[in-house]
């Protein structure tokens, strides 16, 4: 039996790791201790890996999708996931300036902007569907 996981499922599966990063970050009372930084950095790296991989899966899903609205939904959901990471790190990046948090914050911001760009691009294509251009400009695919 094949098990199918939707993009929404994937985001739901990933979310606890972001929440756990917040929980660890808030629980640490001395962010300057080496042990605390090590523990926090480990979770930051897990979330960084999830962000990279989830983005890659969003790209692959959007390549396979046939419906432009479905593609827009994928990029919108991915942008929201980036936002969750950004919101979680908004205070923690200042609490842990040397434990990878500011770098992950910057990366999540860059990824969110890429998602937003793709989302806007797809919406432009949706509105373009109503615009007719003369037949024969582009090759017709059989």
């Amino acid at each position, binding site marked *: 039996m094949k098990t199918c996981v939707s993009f929404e499922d994937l985001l739901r599966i990933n979310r606890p790791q972001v929440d756990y990063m917040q929980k660890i970050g808030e629980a640490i009372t001395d962010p300057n201790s080496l042990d605390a930084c090590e523990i926090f950095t480990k979770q930051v790296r897990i979330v960084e890996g999830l962000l990279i991989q989830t983005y*890659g899966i969003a790209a692959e899903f959007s390549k396979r999708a046939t419906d432009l609205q479905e593609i827009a939904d994928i990029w919108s959901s991915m942008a929201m996931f980036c936002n969750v990471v950004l919101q979680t790190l908004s205070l923690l990046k200042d609490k842990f300036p040397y434990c990878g948090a500011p770098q992950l914050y910057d990366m999540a911001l860059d990824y969110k902007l890429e998602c937003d760009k793709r989302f806007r*691009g797809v919406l432009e294509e949706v509105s373009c569907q109503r615009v007719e251009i003369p037949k024969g400009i582009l*090759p017709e695919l059989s």
Partner: protein
Amino acid sequence: MSTSGDTEGDITRAELAELAALFDQFEFAFDPLSLAAREAESRFDDQVRSLFDQRIGPKYPEVDFTSFYCKVKSACRAYLRKQLRSQR
């Protein structure tokens, strides 16, 4: 002449294939921040602009660049999906 049953247009099938390959490299890049993805996007934009300025704009004055750009992107998506289907 196309051998796959596809019909040529003002933009040839080979040109669309080249644009689709570039589109694939940036729109569906695993790492959207990579130099390769940004270079591909820049080349794609340049090529679409050049095709419009040299061939489409003069022949079809009623077609604006934004609409042409959108249609090329949608055609690239369709081309890549067709490629994916044929690989399965």
